[in-house]
């Protein structure tokens, strides 16, 4: 990331440096060359349409190049690679709470392995914050009430600044931390430190504590949709629309179940707004996600998922709403 941004930055420095130089040299030269001298009147020039067009169109062309280049860099920076390591981030006044999918929890510090894509799934408990790592040229506002996503890949071990870049109140400048980038071996060692198990396992526990499984059963008989294999798939809704079951959709389904009801189900699910914390929500999202990963990755088949493509209404897997 940093390389891409810097390349564009240098290109822009050159372009704007040349432009500045052009203007400055012209102004200084004209100012000196045509300074007032008695007896030499100014020469009146009306203007020149070809010249005006030239210096409108050429800059516009240059601008379009900058735009296109900037857009490409931006798109890359906004699109997390498919198999990224996932870290859930909860921002609050004035600290960063980070939780690895594997279960490690950290505060104001994030340990990541070098060379691995890391996807951040972020939300805020209170006001808007912004996750900013200057060394990675990466920044994303963290909003209350929804997830925003960002990603990075560290290429050199070391410790890097993490800043909150969106003003968030008294200790805004204290809401800082560090990203510790480690060699894979070191990282493995660090990871094996005390953990309560993967985030999805905590999610599963919360899932059963809240009694979700009474309706979201792993067969087709539940009052709510079966959640096996739902994540990342399109879901057909009661009103005919189709949505993709991403993090924000699962989140909304828990907090505002009436918003997007899966086809074939009744709006019977109560809201969990105020009943689950942001961390618990993250765990639930991680759990729902884990129900799809087994099938997707072709790895260990944990559950005999009844993954049915988006047509079948009765057993549409999704968070029931």
């Amino acid at each position, binding site marked *: 990331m940093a390389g*891409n*941004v810097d390349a*564009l*930055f240098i290109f*822009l420095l050159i372009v*704007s440096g040349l*432009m*500045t130089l052009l*203007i*400055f040299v012209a*102004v200084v030269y004209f*100012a000196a060359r*045509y300074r*007032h001298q008695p007896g030499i*009147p*100014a*020469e*009146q*020039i*009306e*203007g*020149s349409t070809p*010249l*005006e067009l030239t*210096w409108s169109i050429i*800059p*516009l062309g240059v*601008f379009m190049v*900058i*735009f296109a*280049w*900037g*857009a*490409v*860099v*931006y798109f890359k920076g906004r699109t997390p690679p498919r198999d990224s390591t996932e870290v859930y981030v909860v921002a609050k006044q004035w600290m960063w709470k980070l939780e690895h999918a594997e279960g490690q929890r950290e505060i104001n510090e994030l340990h990541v392995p070098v060379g691995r894509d890391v996807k951040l799934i972020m939300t805020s408990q209170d*006001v*808007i914050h912004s996750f*900013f790592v*200057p060394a990675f*040229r*990466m*920044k*994303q*506002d963290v*909003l*209350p*009430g929804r997830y925003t996503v960002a990603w990075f890949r560290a290429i050199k071990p070391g410790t890097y*600044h993490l*800043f*909150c*870049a969106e*003003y968030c*109140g*008294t*200790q*805004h*400048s*204290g809401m*800082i931390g560090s990203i510790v980038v480690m060699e894979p071996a070191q990282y493995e060692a660090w990871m094996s430190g005390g953990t309560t198990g993967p985030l999805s396992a905590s999610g599963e526990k919360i899932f059963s504590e809240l009694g979700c499984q009474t309706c979201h059963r792993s067969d087709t008989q539940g009052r709510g949709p079966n959640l096996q294999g739902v994540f990342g798939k399109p879901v057909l809704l009661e009103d005919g629309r189709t949505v993709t079951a991403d993090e924000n959709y699962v989140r909304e389904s828990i907090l505002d179940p009436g918003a997007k009801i899966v086809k074939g189900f009744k709006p019977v699910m109560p809201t969990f707004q105020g009943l689950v914390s942001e961390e618990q929500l993250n765990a639930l999202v991680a759990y729902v996600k884990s129900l799809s990963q087994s099938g997707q990755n072709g790895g260990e088949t944990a559950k005999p998922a009844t993954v049915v493509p988006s047509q079948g209404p009765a057993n549409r897997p999704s968070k029931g709403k």
Partner: protein
Amino acid sequence: MATAIAQPVERENYLNKHYGVGSWLLTTDHKRIALLYLASITFFFFIGGFFALLIRLELLTPAGDLVQADTYNKLFTMHGQVMIFFFLIPSIPAVLGNFLVPMMIGAKDLAFPKINLLSWYIYAIAGILMLHCMLTGGVDTGWTFYTPFSTAFSNTKVIEAGLAIFISGFSSILTGLNFIVTIHRMRAPGMTWSRLPLFIWAHYATSIIQILGTPVVAITLVLVVAERALHLGIFDPKLGGDPLLFQHLFWFYSHPAVYIMILPSMGVVTEIIACFSRKRIFGYSFVALSSIAIAVFGFLVWAHHMFVAGISVYAALVFSILSYAVAVPSAVKVFNWTATLYKGSIRYDAPMLYAFGFLGLFTMGGLTGLFLSALGINVHVTDTYFVIAHFHYIMVGGALMGYLGGMHFWWPKITGRLYPEGWARLAALIVFVGFNLTFFPQFILGYLGMPRRYYDYSHMPEFQVLNVLSTAGATVLGVGYLLPMMYFLWSMRYGKPAPDNPWRAAGLEWQTPSPPPTFNFETEPVVTWEAYNYDEIDKGHKEVPQVVG
């Protein structure tokens, strides 16, 4: 302050026709109202400047040691609010524009003199409310009022500050409305659209933004106040609202607001460059149309303040490309000013030095805007000191330089006195040097990653050197701003009486005595010449453009 002006000349003029506080507070003369505005915005400028100084002093050392964190947050918030809403937005339009728009088009006054006075009173009420807010605790939301911090978390006087800015908006709207009607309806015979000074075109464009943009921020602030008082949920995600909607509505005005600040300044600089290079402006119609283009395109780019805020990436693309569209007319202006110098007969009087300063600083401010509109770079530099530096280059380096240049240029007309030229050139130099020393290091700070609105950077001591440079520059800059204030005040009493047209300038405002009579012209002007007919003046065909009775 203006009542202190000694009677400069024997002739009856707008300053000596009436005396007494009442004659000022109830005046409907656009020139006197301009001076009322001048006094009040100068007051707010120094308040805002004082806040800026404290901010820079705090950042001299990495630790938070001068003021407390909350105080610091209030300082930058109120620095922004005061400078933007109570200084920059009214600065050129309400002072120079108010004074000059009617004179430049040959009118006796603005179309609605009472509304003009009303707008000053609205401004004054807003200003008093803002002062009250500052004195009784202040506000710490950042000038941007981002929700939900402002609506649900800040425990400072958000409602009062919001209302103050809401009220000040109406002053701005009324000024813009008055200008547009005046420019359409009050032009002297012969003053066709293609003969208008480019200052007028710039103010016309500014007025469009004031009229159509300001109400949106006004209603947005109403929603913020309502949300904060009643917890409606419109901007509060906890209650189902979307905080980004606030940002959309806020920037719909607040981005074009930058053009409210810079466009009039461009108008001023155009007049100065033409006068001191004794030339017609190169490409008159392109400069005129580019003002309108900036005003219109300025409305299409607001979400480039929100590229990392969580908006759609597709929308970000649209706003990025539109942002480049607005860069073109700005570039056209710079090229035309430069081309105007070509084969001119250039003098380096103080106003021209400010205009040169404007050219350099605006060019740099504009070009760094290209960095910010490039999506990929924006992600890195937004909300850092890079942005701070960029918009100060535009709004201080650009707008304020233009304002000072204009004040020097028209000071003889306004007061009938000459300021001390040597001091004025020195001040221009100090401002230019001080400005660059203050803000150039901030570009580097920003790219290195120092976030804006940080009170304490003790974990990042590597940022200190650049911050020290910046603070040193701010001190120089402060001196540069105090100087004109002092010699202007001095000149009101001791300055040499100004001739009617000290610069041998072409505009209609110079064809009337300095200071002008109450109704601007002794005989009604009839315009028979193009704008900037410096050849006719200099070749001695006419000493000044003739004013037909």
